[in-house]
């Protein structure tokens, strides 16, 4: 179970040079699983997700001193993780010189071969449907479907208006429903 420590306490400890490491450890224990699953659902592969989670928290360590408390800490961290995932996927496209659809197919193969997937056929089909969505729709759907985040929170993560997010979400759900119905 993640440790539920108030973000204000963590930020306060991080401002003090003597307790900065302690604050970072508390931050890790509270948010490491949320960030990991957010990344894992984006990149599918566990090892890629592991690398990206480490990079995300390195960036959090480097930039937490400049964090402004006008936003929530976890939305700020989700934003960093999202950017890392998008950057990673873009590099993968550029490296393999493939299109976004090809990336979706590759991720589908990864999902099929992954040993760390314990879902049933419906869940697998859902993941395959998600791989067909644009990244932003996929992000909105994941944060809404798996993390039960509000549009306002998703708006802080993605930097998009709530209206645009709602539209993206509905589009994503329609596509998934169609995918589920179509392949059945």
């Amino acid at each position, binding site marked *: 179970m993640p440790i539920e420590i108030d973000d204000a306490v963590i930020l306060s400890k991080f401002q003090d040079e003597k307790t900065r490491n302690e604050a*970072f450890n508390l931050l890790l224990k509270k948010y*490491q699983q949320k960030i990991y699953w957010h990344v894992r659902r984006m990149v599918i592969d*566990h090892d890629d997700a592991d690398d990206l989670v480490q990079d995300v928290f390195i960036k959090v360590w480097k930039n937490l001193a400049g964090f402004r408390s006008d936003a929530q800490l976890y939305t700020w961290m989700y934003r960093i993780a999202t950017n890392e995932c998008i950057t990673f996927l873009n590099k993968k496209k550029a490296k393999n010189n493939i299109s976004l659809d090809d990336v979706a197919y590759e991720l589908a193969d990864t999902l099929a071969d992954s040993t760390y997937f314990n879902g049933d056929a419906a*869940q697998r089909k859902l*993941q395959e449907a998600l791989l067909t969505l644009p990244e932003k729709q996929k992000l909105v759907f994941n944060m809404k479907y798996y993390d039960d985040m509000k549009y306002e929170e998703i708006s802080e993560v993605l930097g998009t208006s709530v209206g645009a997010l709602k539209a993206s979400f509905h589009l994503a*759900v329609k596509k*998934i*429903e169609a995918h589920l119905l179509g392949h059945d």
Partner: protein
Amino acid sequence: MENREWLNDYPSLKQVNPVNPFTVPEGYFDSLGSRIVSLKNLDALKNNTPAKDFTVPENYFEELTNNIQSRIAIETTLNNEDTGFAVPEGYFEGLASNIQSRIAVEEALNTEDAGFAVPEGYFDGLANNIQSRIAVEEALNTQDAGFGVPEGYFDELAANIQSRIALEEALNTEDAGFAIPGGYFDELTANIQSRIAVEEALNTEDAGFAIPDGYFDELAANIQSRLAIEEVLNTEDAGFAVPEGYFDELADNIQSRMMVEEVMAEQAEAFAVPEGYFEKLNQSILDKTIGAQPAEKAVKAVPSKRRGIVRKMYASTFFKYATAACFAVAIGTGILLMQPAAQDNSHQHSFLHKELSGVPIDDIKSYLESNVDGGETQQSVINQGAPVNDAQLKKDLQNIDTLQ
């Protein structure tokens, strides 16, 4: 759950289990935090270390390529020349013949060394020549030194050294501080024997030498006083001066003084008083002064209230002069014995001197010969250092005993 109401519009999606289908390796999240911290520390080290600790000269990397290329070119050149020592062209081809010709030349030079000849018998006389040469050079060096000696110096040198040794030995002996008068050892035996004889005579009372009673009791004091007198006499520096010829006349003066005292003693004995005079004298005086008072009354009387009449006991003129003469003799003798150095010749003009001057010298001599005791004679003989005639001394002593 409100957020989940939208699923009602999508029945296919609603049938899908919303649980996360993805899994992670066992214990993944347990180690994730520590791995991230390690990575964070490593990243911080990687970002900070190179910029701070390792620096390169300015434009190092810009010039690195050219430097490497030039270094390669230099090493290539060095490797081609091998050792770097160049030899003339065709050197090694002609080297063997050059060495052989050099050997032949040196052999010829060694052969010529055998052609140096010396005069016949040169080496036979060489030793003598060298020795004579050394002698000549030594002589030359000696003359050059400029040190000359008188003629016949070395002939007399041994005798001079021996005499010098003898002289220094004598000087060293004197330096020891033990010097003796001339002829000391010649007279030593006789002196020892005489000393032994004297001491034997002094120590043996059985030998017939008699000494006055208490002689030895006073001997130490006498010797000390004699030593004191002699020390005073020997030390002119002590500041005590005596008239010229004082000590020459001292013995005579003492003897004459003693004779005077004897005369005075005889004169004192010449005044006789009736028998029992002094026993009665006191009572007689009391009778005359206190009168007929009863003895008991006289005893009980208070002396402070009654004054006795003092009368002169001896009122004759002769008695006055005799008493004065006795006091004068006693005081003069004391002064003479205690302070002989301060004595002068003024006593010769005193009353005693005038009185004694009338006594004939023959009478004084006869008196002394008949009245000087044995102890005084023996002491004067010893003190004067004259040889002791034991037989004569014993005879004199017997005569004295007989007289006594």
